[in-house]
């Protein structure tokens, strides 16, 4: 075992920090926030494009992706380090969530050649079209349909919580292509441009809006969307993987999306914040840093945060070895989001009414980030597979326990 980064990786981290200090500003960070609500042209602004060109020139984008598709043939840990540092600065440089890994694993050569380099340099960004009004945790019960018509598919239906649907260039969509098959067997994945005729995006404003949450809030921000598909016609070349075999492709991408720098940092950022805050602040003559109950709670949560870090490192180690998760990704997706909630709620009891004050309020601490966290931290335990679903997976995949649904049915007979 080895718990250290290599000297090369440490150098890389220093270089990335230096770059961030020299090249990032608030406007870019705001635009990069996927949830930012403003209606604007799809795709990156010229400033963001220029920034990504610079990052790309450093060889820091898609490090673990093959060179032939615009990556660096590098290691997953180095890619993690770059992602962590940019996330700390408030911007995501990951390749649009689960899209890129799924294309790499299941795409045609043509799709890989087209999409991966453009995802890496940010020409293309994906929004995720999985969840529907009636299909969340039980995603395979989705109803959005794609009906074959010659070389095309015609898509009809509705997707929920399509975050960034108003700004992404493309969508990564899961739809039903065979109504008669068993529910997991009739599903396909499509990737296509968001300016395809027949798509309507309607904003859904979260409880993080008005005032808008500061950048860096746990499961930040103000806007997601619902997206309607009304006879949207796409060519069959938009299929990712085989027709009716989309379930596994989608699940695989999601697995990789549940771990990594983003999930880790949204779960632990407040641990750092509260330690550094109590070190440097007090309320009049009262110093929370000297309160034994607060000291104990902070230490307890700090240890939990270390477990978040180590579970992330474990996931990276597994991926880097070329192995598959059995349950480790799901375990991390139980522990880290619930830790995020525990630290958030503990802070409310350390800072009391100050934690009610939102961004822009007089007396708000650190732009109200702790208050906004109260309204958002539990989100991390819901999206991309709820912690309840993740516990099912740990028990069933990790421990070989039987499905409760099947057993209950069998028992009833």
């Amino acid at each position, binding site marked *: *075992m*080895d*718990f*250290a*980064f*290599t000297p090369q*990786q440490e150098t890389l981290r220093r270089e990335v920090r230096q770059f961030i200090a020299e090249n990032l500003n608030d406007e870019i960070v705001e635009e990069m926030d996927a949830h930012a609500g403003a209606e604007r042209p799809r795709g990156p602004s010229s400033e963001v494009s220029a920034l990504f060109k610079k990052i790309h020139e450093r060889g820091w984008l898609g490090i673990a992706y093959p060179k032939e598709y615009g990556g660096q043939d590098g290691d997953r*840990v180095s890619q993690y380090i770059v992602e962590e540092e940019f996330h700390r600065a408030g911007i995501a440089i990951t390749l649009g969530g689960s899209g890129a890994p799924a294309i790499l694993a299941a795409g045609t050569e043509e799709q890989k050649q087209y999409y991966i380099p453009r995802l890496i340099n940010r020409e293309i960004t994906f929004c995720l079209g999985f969840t529907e009004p009636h299909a969340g945790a039980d995603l395979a019960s989705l109803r959005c349909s794609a009906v074959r018509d010659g070389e095309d598919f015609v898509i009809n239906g509705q997707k929920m919580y399509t975050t960034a649907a108003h700004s992404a260039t493309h969508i990564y969509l899961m739809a039903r292509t065979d109504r008669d098959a068993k529910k997991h067997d009739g599903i396909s994945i499509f990737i296509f441009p968001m300016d395809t005729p027949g798509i309507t995006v309607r904003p859904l404003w979260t409880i993080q809006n008005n005032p808008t949450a500061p950048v860096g809030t746990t499961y930040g921000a103000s806007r997601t969307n619902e997206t309607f598909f009304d006879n949207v016609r796409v060519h069959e070349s938009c299929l990712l993987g085989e027709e009716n075999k989309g379930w596994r492709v989608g699940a695989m991408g999601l697995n990789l999306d549940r771990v990594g720098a983003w999930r880790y940092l949204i779960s*632990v950022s407040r*641990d*750092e914040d509260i*330690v*550094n805050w*109590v*070190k440097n602040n007090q309320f009049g003559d009262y110093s929370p*840093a000297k309160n034994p109950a607060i*000291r*104990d709670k*902070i*230490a*307890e949560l*700090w*240890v*939990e*945060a*270390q*477990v978040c*870090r*180590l*579970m992330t*490192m*474990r996931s*990276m*180690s*597994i991926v*880097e070895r070329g192995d598959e998760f059995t*349950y*480790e990704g799901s*375990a991390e997706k*139980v*522990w880290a989001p619930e830790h995020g909630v525990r630290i958030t709620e503990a802070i409310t009891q350390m800072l009391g009414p100050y934690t009610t004050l939102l961004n822009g309020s007089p007396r708000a601490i650190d732009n109200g980030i702790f208050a906004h966290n109260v309204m958002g931290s539990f989100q991390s335990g819901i999206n991309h597979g709820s912690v*309840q679903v*993740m*516990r*099912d997976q*740990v*028990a*069933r995949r*990790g*421990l*070989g*326990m*039987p*499905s*409760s649904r*099947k*057993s*209950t049915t*069998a*028992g009833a007979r």
Partner: protein
Amino acid sequence: MDVLLDDDEHLISDSARAFLAGECSTKLVREMESDDLGYPAELWQKAAELGWQGMCLPENVGGSDMPLVHLGLVLHEVGRAVAPLPLHSTAVASLTIAHDGTEDQQSRYLPPVAMGETVLTWAFTEVDPRPVPEAVQMQAREQGDGFVLDGAKLFVDNFNAADHCLVVARTTPDSEGEAGLTLFIVDTQAKGISHTPLVTIAKDKQSEVLFENVYVAKEDVIGTPGEAWPIVEDMLDRGTVLLCAQMLGAARKDIEMAFEYSQFREAFGIPIAAFQSVQHMCADMVVWVDGGDLLTYEALWRIDQGLPASVEVSQAKAFCNEKCEAAVRNSQIIHGGIGFMMEFDLNLWFRRVSAWCMRMGTSLDHRARIAHALIDMPGTVVLGRPIPVLVQEDDAVPASASR
């Protein structure tokens, strides 16, 4: 960065597990609970043939000079088998002699350890059970060519079986805290020593040891008289993290028994493993013990690298205490009434994990140490980066230099 076990580490772990599966039945574990000595001499000897006692001792005393991580893996398996072996207490004492003892002390005390011919232990705790220097009140006054020890130590492991015991006492009258402490190697048969067995939930061997005018020669002092705290702190850190490894091995086996039991125990016509409430308890148990493993291996690894590890050791113990206890308690609940029965083996694990959770510092003790490093030291903390180490600001020697 690869936090998973490598091939060598798997080999050590697998072979220790296979050995104990063959040699250490629960019948033996039960027998040793009421045995006077508390461990089977034959098994202790076989362990020495495998090189366990000498694993991290220098080669010139018959050891194999391997990293502490390897001994952690062995203790993990010892815990898994709840093997009645005095390996932990012997390791705590012998590693301290190996790290901080003189060549003479090493050549006198360590070869019999590696040969499996002796058992060692250590005595730090007194009435105040916290692993902090101010808890040491026992006095040792200089006399002739040695010191005379007076006082009482509590919760001393395997004192009944040990030939020698490392004892921490104050040689500077009226000293406080870290100052004035001295570490002695004491013959357990020396004149003036008496001990009373304590009755523990683990039914293992712990004693209250009384020292009345016990003479110890100067050549049996480890380090400089009055300046033993850094040595003692390292001793406690190694012992604490190795105890975590042992506790995690036992907790892992304990929860595996619950997973297995739930698969064949039926209620309402189906295995209880099919109930989501049971599944979610089990998922939590795995997550907790996995988390403990990662914290513990990181601390062991850092000690092996010569990096500051005090905070990491405390992280591991603070977490393992509460999470291992919760995991084995969940296991009891999943087992229902049968887990409460003495004749059912589960209790052998439950009672030991519970006891180990309470020794070498509670979660509160260790969190106080973490909080001190996090909050009282200057500078900004960043997760994953080194945090300020545990030193007094006026301390000239950084704690890292003592490793």
